[in-house]
Every structure is written in structure tokens, then in C-alpha cells.
């Protein structure tokens, strides 16, 4: 369980995280979404006690991270960039981390096996691919068999097979009753993995709800309607939950009504339709919509 209350982080004048409160519950994969620069990594660093909050608190399993006598056994973390000395072997890296808690060497071999790095365990980490680096990061996260996992962009740099592997692993870990908190800037990836979602945009909380609910509310369909009688039709379609946008003299973009309902309205008033096209918004679009004012750096 991770609980953030009024969590804020300022760097000089810049506000990276702005009064954010949320709870990440055990037994679920919780997706932590937001564009690059939204404050996800900063939030995760505050959870791990690496950055001190400017205001507010965040606890893990009821205590501040640094107050746990055995932090690696409470929280396993995969941090955004490779947090590994590039000249050391994967085995020695894990061995050094394990030693801080007196975790036995057998566990080091176990996690290496689990992430599929046994064969390259003695190689310098500097020679690893991005995907192997992510696997090593996961191995360090799992070292203490923790109840909570905090993973920053774990699928970055993985091939499709690796992505599926991570997805299954995360679901499996959540199934065992662990708290799994995963950040991503890719909505579609999260839709397949997470059952709860927390969305951050420019440091502010934008959404905190079950994934199914999030998708349902967010997928209001648009329908493109082309008609020579667009004026008349627009007036007829107007309603409390309906927005009609005029994109061209004969083209309407209608949100809040199904294509069938629009077709019926047109037939009832004997108006000609030349095109009626439902536009299912992609997950990426929903996500962009939600955070569009909040993208700090457009590429």
C-alpha cells in the first residue's frame, strides 16, 4: 500500500508535483500515466525517499520509506535510467545490494534465473542492451521479495516478447496480493496491464479510477456527419449532453450521440445524409485529451 497525501515537489520556481494525493492498493496493477515531464519519476523518487517532498507526505506500508528497517523487503524499485555501475557485473551488482540487508546469495541466483540473465550474470553491465538493463532492474526490484513494487517505465526498450513477459509478471505479482505501481507514458500499454489508473498532467492529479471506468468515461464516441442540410441537422441534434461542431459547411462532428440516433433524427426530418462515420477515439487520443494542456515539451 502506497499513500500520498498532498505531495508536492518544487525545484526553485518550477513545480514538478503539485498537491497530489492518491492510494495505491495491494492486489492490483496500478498504472501511473502521464506525458514525459508530468512528474511521474519525481513522485516515484519521493516514494523511495530519494527526493524529499517540498510539502505533504508519502508512506509505504504505513511508514515513510526511510523509516523501514528493511526497505528492500518492503519496496522493490526499478528506476527510470539504469541505476547500475556500468563496470560491475550483474551478479556483483545484485550481490552488493543483497548484502545491505543480509539477503543470501541463493536469492541473487534465484532472481537472475527469474529474469533470464543467468547466462550473462558475469558480464559487465555496460555491455548490456537496454532490455537486459531493464531485466536487471527488475531483478534488483525483486531481490527482497517485496510487498510493494515501484517500476518506472519498465517496458522501455523491451521487444514485444519482453513486453508480454513483463505484463504477465506484473499481473502475476499483483495476483499474489502485492502492490504493483507502474509508470508509463504509453496509454495503450497500460490499458492491457493495469486494472487501476492514476493520471498525472503537469504535476497535477488528472484521474484516479479503475481502468474500466476510465476507459468507459473517456471513450465518448464522435460521429462525423456530412449533409447538404448541415445547418438544420445541427439544430435538431443539439441537446444537453451533445456537442456539435461545424468542421466544414457540410460537415458536422457530433459527440454524445450514436450514429444510429443521428440517422434516425435525419430520417424523421427527411434530411439527406451523405456520410455517417463513427470515430472511435483511440486510447492515445483520450490520454492526450486529458493531459493536452499539460504537455510541457512537444516533440
Amino acid at each position, binding site marked *: 500500500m502506497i499513500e500520498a497525501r498532498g505531495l508536492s515537489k518544487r525545484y526553485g520556481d518550477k513545480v514538478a508535483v503539485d498537491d497530489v494525493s492518491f492510494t495505491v492498493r495491494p492486489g492490483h496493477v496500478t498504472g501511473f500515466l502521464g506525458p514525459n515531464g508530468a512528474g511521474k519519476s519525481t513522485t516515484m*523518487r519521493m516514494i*523511495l*525517499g*530519494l*527526493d*524529499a517532498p517540498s510539502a505533504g507526505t508519502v508512506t509505504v506500508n504505513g511508514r515513510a*520509506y*526511510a523509516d*523501514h*528497517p*528493511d*526497505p*528492500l*523487503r518492503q519496496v522493490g*524499485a526499478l*528506476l527510470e*535510467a*539504469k*541505476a*547500475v*555501475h*556500468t*563496470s*560491475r*557485473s550483474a551478479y*556483483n*551488482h545484485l*550481490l*552488493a*545490494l543483497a*548484502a*545491505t*540487508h*543480509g*539477503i543470501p546469495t541463493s536469492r541473487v541466483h534465484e532472481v537472475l534465473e527469474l529474469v533470464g540473465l543467468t547466462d550473462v550474470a558475469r558480464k559487465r553491465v555496460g555491455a548490456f542492451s537496454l532490455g537486459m538493463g531493464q531485466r536487471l532492474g527488475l531483478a*534488483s526490484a525483486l531481490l*527482497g521479495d517485496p510487498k510493494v513494487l515501484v517500476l518506472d517505465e519498465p517496458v522501455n526498450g523491451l521487444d514485444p516478447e519482453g513486453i508480454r513477459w513483463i505484463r504477465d509478471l506484473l499481473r502475476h505479482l499483483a495476483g499474489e496480493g502485492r502492490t504493483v505501481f507502474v509508470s508509463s507514458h504509453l496509454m495503450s500499454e497500460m490499458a492491457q496491464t493495469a486494472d487501476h489508473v492514476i493520471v498525472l498532467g503537469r504535476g497535477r492529479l488528472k484521474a484516479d479510477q479503475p481502468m474500466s471506468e476510465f476507459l468507459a468515461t473517456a471513450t465518448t464516441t464522435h460521429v462525423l456527419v456530412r449533409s447538404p442540410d448541415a445547418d438544420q441537422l445541427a439544430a435538431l441534434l443539439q441537446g444537453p449532453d451533445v456537442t456539435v461542431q461545424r468542421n466544414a459547411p457540410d460537415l458536422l462532428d457530433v459527440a454524445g450521440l450514436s450514429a444510429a440516433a443521428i440517422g434516425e433524427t435525419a430520417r424523421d426530418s427527411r434530411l439527406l445524409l451523405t456520410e455517417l462515420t463513427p470515430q472511435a477515439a483511440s486510447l492515445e487520443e483520450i490520454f492526450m485529451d486529458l493531459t493536452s494542456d499539460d504537455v510541457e515539451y512537444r516533440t
Partner: protein
Amino acid sequence: MNVTWPHVVRSEWIKLRSLRSTWFTLAGAVLAVIVIGTVVGYATNAHWSSIGPEERARFEPITRSLVGVNLGQLIIGVLGVLLISGEYATGMVRATFAAVPRRLPVLTAKAVLYAVVLYPVLLAATLAAFLWGQHGLASHGTTLSAPHALRAVLGAAAYLDLVGLLALALGFIVRSTAGGIATLVGLLLVLPGIGQALPQSWRENTVPYLPSQAGGALYIPRPEDPGSLHFWAGGGVLCLWVLGALVIAGVLLKRRDV
């Protein structure tokens, strides 16, 4: 299975020994101290007839065989800085301080481990430099039983050890390899040079207390500068520098974000 100080020391030992650069750098420092001391000994003996009376009067065989410390201190210093700056450069610090979020045990474990592991190695180097250096000096040399000889050999190793710790503390403060090494070189080599340009009354009250000048008393029994501190006082002042730097490093480590 909790984080304890002995556990952190063990972790730091694994980190120290699992980097090839540790062993290369340490071997470099040891070689520098031994080779320079030996070569200077033989060279001095071979050119004795061309040495003027003034220089002969100043000649002191113990210090002569330990001049390699001048280069050795920089190599040991680089290793000290790298011990932590290497972690900042690669991002390893985040893993380190996520595992030990109280942070201070990492600083103290690194310091104690570095000092303890280093000392016997450095002592072997200064002893070898002394013995081979005196062998090279032949009739102009001295022995370990001469006054201050053993103390200088032990002191030279202690000086290098303390410089290593100072460098480690600077690495924690500056958090970058280049910055840490530059600061160390500034403290050890540049400041004494600048000090020489100060008016005499200022110079007398500052230069002898700089780390390399004060620490020199540990292995230079007959300093050229009459204002120099003596063995215990000089060693004590260098210890204060190291302690001060470690305290600043500790305070910053607790305060700053990783």
C-alpha cells in the same frame, strides 16, 4: 534481514572489490611510491659527486626515499573520489540509497572500509620504497632503526590514507569525478603555491595548516620551512581537515536529494 552497519560495510566491500578500476588504481599508487623512491635513491647515489655542498647539507635520506608520496597521493585521491563519484556518474547512487535510505551508513562504511583496506597496502608500499631507496642510496642512506625512520614510513602511509579519505569526502560533497579531483588538487597542490605569494605574516599563519603542508610532517622529519608543524601537530591538523570534510559530506548527504 535488516539494514545494519556491518551489512552495509559488507556491501561496500563487494562494490570496492568488484571494480577492476579499484585494483588498477591501487596498483598504480603502490608502484608510483615504490618506483620513484627506488629510482631517486639510485640516481642520487650515482650523481653524488655532482651535488653541491649546500644541497648536501639539506640532504635527508628518509624523505628522499619517500618522494613518491607526491604522486601517490594524487592516485589515491582519484580512487577516493571515484568511490562515490562513479556511483553518481552511472546512476548507481539511486540503487545504493534506495537500499540504505538513511544514507549516512554508506558514507561511514565507505570511509572506514577505504581507510582500513588501504593502510596495509600503503604501508607495504612506503616500506618497500624506504628499503629499496636506502639500498640505492648505499653509503648515503640510512636504516629503519635510525631516528624518525620507522615513524616516517608509518607516517607516509598514514598521510596517503588520510588524503584518500579527504578525497572520498570531497567526492561526496562535489558528486562529480572531475570536480572532486580538481578540488583535491587545488587543496593539496595549488593552495600551497598561492600561499607562497602571500605576505610573510599571513603565510606563516596559513600555509603550514594546509592539508598537504601539515600532513607532510608525518613523513618529512626535517622540513625546509622552519614554520612547519611537527609530527603529531601536523598529523592532527590533517585529521581535522579530513574530519571536517567528512562532516560536511554527511550533512549534505542527509539534506540533498539524491
